[in-house]
């Protein structure tokens, strides 16, 4: 079987860098230890090898489809729902008293990474079910929880998130799906939702849709949106009856073809009942509280697809003979056998770029997941700080892998030459599959607005201060080693340039020029995420260096040396890009803000 992940890299990040076992000292996680984390990771890899990876290509070749009111998906979806339900993995993050496993987010993310590397069309089915059940469990009344959550955690019923409507994608304030009180505590739901992932298929008895809708007379905008549980089949006595939720189609897509994307119509026959979750008009707020986890999941999908692509191109480069190395004096020995392409510097550059992007992404995603745990179960006095760090880093952890992952895979595809373009090799599929990650759960544009317009300035810049402190800690640790000092200095400088640029942009916000403040938010995202990943790389390199110096090694010496080498690659080839971002952001010409009578994009 092809290699699609480095388990050693994952173990390095989880154990040696983030010390996952320390989480077990908190009451919430006290039933776990390092061994149980390892067995979980190994078992997930075994399952991914046995069940998930073998259907990766099949799901692409035989996509989800709609026929006569029904959605058909690959049978492995049924197998995975059943397994994840019985296994306990749908409820992995839930409290014990809800039938959950109280697994740390860090380990949950590590397991998701393994599964997503193996087959990125599959984990969404269980992940969304868990997300929807999580909303009910967090904000719903007990009766609602008892009715829906157990069947969702057991995998019998699927769950979805229904936000998007034809006229309301990025702008959820324009949602029009309506909810009219029926008088018996329920609401009549009417409206359409599009692009609903995992919205229907034959392998679940029921689907529990978490629907954003507007109660009659609700205020306009986001403040008038409420959250409802709207099952496909409502509970009637001991059985189920139709709840007037019609599946109107399945969107045919360029990638993630095995993951159905449905069009749902609610209340076409005025017989669709929904039940309010929590209180009226707080729906979007509830959704946003679950958003960090969901966005990190999308970042993980992207990082994992790019990871699998890296391993595929690495293997190809190790095997493909082509051309000869240039000998000193610029000559080639044409009588010698061809070299494998991995010996060509340009191919190595592309492979190292893939490695730098993917391992950097995985590292930040695990770091963010750890902050998630610490913000919920860590020492009381530190929770807010970790929460702020998570809030600040989430848009980056989602966007960097989904944008840079595309570049990474494109380079991987390039390594295969013409074969990269052909369906005989998986690179073209990875290239298509990853594209969605920069779109759903908030586009890159929206994430960037969130980062600059909300997170950087939140609590008067408090979260930024926490992040700067984390970066400084890493710089100081790196400065203990002569080999790492130049890179520590480079990061210190980059961090300062980031601060200077933020100060420059803030002037616009303070003078009321808000559109100008956020006009180039995506360039800012590029800038800041490049610095943040430099921080992660320096952190990894310092851990590696410490292992080498203290001879406290879990892996062989080459593993740690290669980590340091890849960090150096990142600092030479990637980090300098911030100069270009900074130049653009400091240039006060306004070329993209629309002005009246301007014809440039007419």
């Amino acid at each position, binding site marked *: 079987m092809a290699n699609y992940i480095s*388990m*050693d890299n994952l173990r390095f990040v989880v154990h040696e860098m983030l010390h996952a076992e320390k989480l077990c000292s908190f009451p919430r996680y006290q*039933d*776990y*230890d390092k*061994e*149980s984390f*390892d*067995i*979980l990771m*190994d*078992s997930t890899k*075994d*399952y991914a090898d*046995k069940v998930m990876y073998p259907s990766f290509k099949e799901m692409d070749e035989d996509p989800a489809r709609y026929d006569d009111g029904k959605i058909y998906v690959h049978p492995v979806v049924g197998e995975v729902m059943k397994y994840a339900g*019985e*296994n*306990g*993995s749908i409820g*992995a993050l839930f409290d014990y008293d809800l039938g959950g*496993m109280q*697994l740390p987010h860090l380990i949950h993310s590590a397991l998701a990474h393994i599964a997503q590397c193996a087959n990125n069309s599959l984990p969404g089915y269980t992940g969304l079910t868990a997300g929807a059940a999580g909303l009910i469990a967090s904000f719903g009344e007990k009766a609602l929880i008892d009715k829906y959550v157990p069947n969702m955690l057991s995998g019998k019923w699927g769950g979805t998130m229904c936000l998007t409507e034809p006229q309301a994608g990025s702008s959820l304030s324009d949602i029009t799906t309506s909810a009219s009180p029926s008088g018996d505590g329920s609401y009549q739901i009417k409206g359409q939702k599009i692009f609903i992932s995992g919205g229907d298929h034959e392998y679940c008895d029921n689907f529990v849709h978490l629907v954003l809708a507007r109660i009659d007379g609700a205020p306009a905008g986001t403040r008038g949106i409420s959250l409802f549980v709207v099952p496909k089949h409502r509970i009637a006595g001991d059985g189920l009856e139709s709840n007037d939720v019609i599946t109107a189609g399945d969107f045919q897509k360029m990638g993630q073809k095995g993951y159905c994307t449905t069009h749902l119509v609610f209340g076409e026959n005025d017989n669709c009942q929904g039940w309010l979750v929590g209180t009226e008009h707080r729906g979007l707020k509830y959704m946003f509280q679950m958003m960090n986890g969901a966005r990190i999941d999308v970042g993980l999908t992207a990082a994992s697809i790019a990871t699998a692509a890296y391993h595929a191109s690495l293997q190809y480069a190790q*095997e493909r*003979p082509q051309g000869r190395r240039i000998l000193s004096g610029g000559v080639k020995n044409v009588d010698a*056998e061809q070299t494998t392409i991995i010996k060509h510097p340009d191919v190595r550059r592309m492979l190292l770029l893939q490695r730098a992007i993917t391992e950097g992404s995985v590292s930040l995603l695990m770091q963010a997941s750890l902050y998630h745990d610490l913000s919920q179960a860590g020492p009381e006095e530190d929770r807010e700080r970790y929460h702020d760090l998570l809030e600040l880093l989430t848009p980056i952890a989602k966007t960097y892998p989904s944008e840079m992952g595309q570049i990474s895979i494109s380079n991987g595809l390039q390594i295969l030459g013409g074969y990269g373009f052909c369906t005989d090799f998986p690179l073209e599929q990875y290239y298509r599959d990853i594209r969605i990650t920069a779109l759903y759960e908030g586009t890159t544009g929206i994430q960037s607005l969130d980062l600059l317009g909300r997170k950087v300035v939140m609590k008067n810049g408090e979260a930024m201060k926490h992040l700067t402190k984390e970066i400084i800690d890493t710089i100081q640790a790196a400065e203990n080693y002569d080999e790492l000092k130049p890179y520590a200095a480079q990061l210190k400088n980059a961090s300062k340039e980031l601060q200077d640029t933020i100060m420059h942009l803030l002037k616009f916000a303070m003078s009321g020029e808000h559109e100008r403040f956020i006009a180039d938010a995506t360039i800012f995202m590029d800038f800041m995420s490049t610095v943040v990943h430099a921080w992660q790389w320096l952190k990894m390199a310092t851990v590696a260096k410490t292992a080498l110096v203290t001879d406290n*090694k*879990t*892996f*062989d*010496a080459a*593993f740690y040396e290669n980590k340091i080498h890849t960090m150096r690659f990142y600092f030479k080839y990637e980090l300098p890009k911030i100069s270009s971002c900074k130049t653009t952001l400091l240039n006060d010409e306004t070329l993209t803000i629309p002005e009246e009578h301007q014809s440039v994009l007419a």
Partner: protein
Amino acid sequence: MKLLVCVSKTPDTTTKVSFTDGDTAFDTQGVQYIMNPYDEWYALVRALELKESAGGTVTIINVGTADNDAIIRKGLAIGADDAIRVDAAGGSAYFVAKQIAEQAKAGSYDMVFFGKETIDYNGSQIGAMVSEMLDMPFISYATKMDMAGNTATIARDIEGGQEIVEVDTPFVLSAAKGLAEQRIPNMRGIMQAKRKPLNVVPAVAVDEKASIVSYALPPAKSDCRYVDAENMDELVALLHGEAKVI
């Protein structure tokens, strides 16, 4: 029924093998370990199936240091009820067999399961030695096993065919591919495993009867040779003359 399953720790199949101490010891630096697949996938799972259909207990046993607790925990996560670890830094096949036989005798098990071999040293010795020490019949390389009361009907692959053996408990068996199907431990099992008993017992003294003189790696594989798809004669000549496989 009381079932004992012997499990050992082997390097992951992707490990790059090298030797130290003048080629008398395997270099363990940077090596990731797994449970020997024949023990895990076939011996342990078949024992669990028997317990599930006929009742009883499954105990796993390992001879090794605390480093081995991770693979023991995995066995408990898959479904074994308890475990014994004989606390010893390893030793020859004879040493390990002696330890297992001691524990097996004390526990009066109905069946003692082994994998057909470990995937590192491929010795296939311990099962046979233990059966001798326990004075029980030994059925090796079992690919299928049915129980009726106390009688087992066991199929074993032999050169060019199959042999069917009938044997009454107690007996010792070594498991080959086909005896069962790999079970992946689930989350709940992994959590429960931490609470299942793992009894660590001291090793008994053994007079070693053999020692390792040296190890050597097989000769390195030569580079890939490309032969023109049209040139069958060259291919045949190479396979015959150089590779000597036809």
